[in-house]
């Protein structure tokens, strides 16, 4: 048979108008030789080798990538294994059929050489032509049998006549949102520098380590009120001045402190169940409002209304202007109310209790107080709920954090009362705050790390852990400019964290754009 090879090589070399080719590669020669070989011994060896090489490959464990759909048409190129989109593809070695893949890669060139071979033989003898074509058919049959390629497989493909309906024309794939995000969130996260150590540490001796009390607040006038033991102190964050506001009698203490939205009025809920109002500019008590039979552990202001939550399980709305201050009593909790927050738009009041409930109360239609039956009762937490925060940019989003047995931060849509997200924070959640500058929130935790954690919202990707407290962090408050967070720990320290400082570049940009807008505005007025 070598003379045929020689002839075909010679012919190839003599073709002047075709593309010039070097001598055929070794594999081609080999293939040609094996195909050309009408000698029976080589044939049988060949078929045996095919059988053995493919015998380990059962039809059902075909390579997924080279399944019947793809390969009937696509044979000139192998499908690329790595997706161009940058997605990770982890090849499954067990599922990869190397023999079949090799066959498919070489199939095209094999066919070509067959044709060449035919040409060469036809010019020489009819007999060998017949042999070669017979061999070719044989071989193809063999291969298709082994590989069960496409339609040559002995089976039927059946489908039901009444097809499923197409999606409605107006349908828009909801996943589009997922794909339209330009930069992956994972690369964006942590792009901001967050100092992880506290900027300043204040001593807070005798700070009561009680999960159910709210003993610190930061006013719009930049004054931090904090209760230490039986005293209430005011720390002016601007000047650093410390002033003692009041001292309770032996055995009594402040259970909660809350500043009015604007101004210097501080509400103090005390251990006897009364709510005191103090004018801090004059250091003078304005009035005392009773209404509870047990200590007041939580307070929330809504303009002239102050809502107080008590150990007796009730929430009372006090109108601070009226002589009859007690507007209504809400009895949705059976145990101590330790979390109380009005929503940023003041349409809802959220309360959390030791009975593991989060209640959401909608504002009364009259505009004062709330309805006496809760709008929503969320019982998904497995522990007392103290940490409550309303999202400033989504007024209907409430975040709540559970105690040691629960450790979850849950997000609620109060419009429809659904749980939107739940994240296991792996530690007791004592306090939650949303940032005003970033789409982030900060949570205060207890055992094991006593850290503050900054999360990206809504992805809830951890941004940073602020560590420093040596005992659980009980309370957090945000500075009026929203850049600094103060945390009060059971280790009797107050720590200031400059974790939400506005990005200087972003603020510059905002300034420049606002300037640009202004000029356009002026022009339009003229």
């Amino acid at each position, binding site marked *: 048979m070598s003379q045929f090879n020689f002839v075909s090589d010679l012919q190839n070399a003599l073709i002047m108008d075709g593309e010039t080719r070097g001598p055929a590669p070794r594999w081609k020669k080999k293939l040609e030789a094996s195909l050309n070989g009408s000698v029976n011994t080589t044939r049988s060896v060949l078929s045996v080798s095919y059988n053995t090489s493919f015998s380990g490959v059962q039809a059902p464990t075909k390579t*997924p990538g080279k*399944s019947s759909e793809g390969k009937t048409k696509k044979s000139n190129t192998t499908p690329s294994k790595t997706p*161009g989109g940058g997605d990770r593809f982890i090849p499954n070695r067990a599922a990869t059929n190397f023999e079949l893949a090799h066959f498919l890669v070489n199939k095209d060139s094999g066919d070509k050489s067959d044709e060449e071979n035919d040409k060469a033989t036809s010019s020489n003898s009819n007999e060998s032509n017949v042999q070669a074509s017979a061999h070719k058919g044989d071989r193809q049959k063999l291969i298709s049998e082994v590989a069960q390629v496409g339609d040559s497989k002995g089976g039927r*493909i*059946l489908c*039901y006549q009444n*097809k499923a*309906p197409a*999606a409605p024309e107006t349908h828009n794939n909801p*996943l589009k949102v997922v794909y339209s995000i330009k930069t992956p969130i994972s690369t964006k996260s942590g792009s901001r520098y967050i100092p992880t150590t506290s900027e300043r540490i204040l001593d807070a001796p005798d700070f009561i380590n009680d999960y159910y009390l709210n003993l610190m607040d930061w006013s719009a006038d930049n004054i931090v009120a904090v209760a230490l033991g039986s005293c209430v102190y005011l720390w002016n964050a601007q000047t650093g001045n410390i002033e003692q506001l009041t001292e309770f009698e032996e055995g009594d203490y402040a259970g909660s402190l809350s500043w009015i939205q604007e101004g210097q009025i501080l509400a103090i809920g005390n251990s006897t169940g009364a709510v005191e109002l103090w004018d801090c500019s004059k250091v003078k008590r304005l009035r005392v409002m009773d209404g509870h039979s047990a200590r007041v552990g939580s307070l929330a202001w809504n303009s002239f209304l102050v809502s107080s939550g008590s150990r007796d399980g009730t929430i009372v709305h006090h109108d601070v202007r009226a002589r009859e201050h007690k507007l209504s009593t809400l009895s949705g909790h059976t145990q101590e109310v330790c979390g109380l927050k009005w929503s940023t738009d003041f349409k809802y009041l959220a309360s959390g209790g030791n009975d593991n409930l989060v209640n959401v109360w909608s504002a009364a239609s009259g505009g004062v107080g709330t309805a006496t039956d809760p709008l929503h009762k969320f019982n998904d937490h497995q522990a007392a709920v103290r940490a409550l925060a309303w999202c400033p940019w989504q007024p209907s989003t409430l975040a709540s954090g559970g105690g040691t047995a629960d450790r979850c931060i849950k997000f609620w849509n109060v419009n429809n009362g659904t749980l939107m997200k739940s994240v296991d924070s792996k530690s007791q959640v004592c306090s939650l705050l949303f940032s005003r500058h970033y789409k982030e929130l900060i949570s205060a935790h207890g055992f094991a790390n006593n850290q503050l954690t900054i999360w990206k919202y809504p992805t809830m990707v951890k941004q940073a852990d602020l560590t420093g407290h040596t005992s659980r962090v009980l309370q957090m408050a945000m500075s009026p400019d929203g850049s600094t967070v103060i945390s009060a720990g059971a280790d009797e320290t107050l720590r200031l964290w400059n974790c939400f400082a506005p990005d200087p570049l972003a603020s510059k940009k905002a300034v420049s754009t606002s300037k640009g807008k202004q000029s356009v505005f002026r022009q339009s007025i003229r």
Partner: protein
Amino acid sequence: MSTAQATKNCITLKGSAQIIVEYLKYGINSILFQRGIYPAEDFNNTQQYGLTILMSKDPKIKTFLQNVLSQTEEWLSKNMINKISMVITNAHTKEVLECWDFNMQAELGDGDISDPTKATTTKELSRIQNEIRDVMRQISATVSYLPLLDCICTFDIMIHTLQNTELPAKWDETGAIVIQNPQAVQLRSFSTGLHKVDTVVNYKMST
């Protein structure tokens, strides 16, 4: 019925077919939802395999699946199916965009193997369901790498049967489908002891 067999801790071919058809029902519905083929409003929550799975409540889709799967179950219990393909096509151009292959492989089971039609297995139902749950989880996770189906789509189910299968009423024979520039990802497999089911998704690579 499958639960009754589970208490006996013995699954017959028929029970195995039932388990697989149940998986197909939930799997296909999950794909329809996860891939955003039909509007999300058309789906209901159901609890299955310890997961929340969204099932289509469109009566047409429900009857279609009911019809197809009941026939599938019959064939499966006779071991006549090689593969079940769920094909997602562009409703307008009819181009095939995605194809979910459920490859079926008969297994001998661990019972009496003298008569292959009466094969049984003692694999626990809870174990099978755990395996199925893992696959179902993977199906939901495919959203992260499968390309967006940004067109009005429809789907079809093709049953790859043996050559000697009789064509039932209302069924047609069809040709193989072709995906341009295909990529394939094999998900986990599960086995009932009598059938091993591989789930493979073939999809069209953009560009």
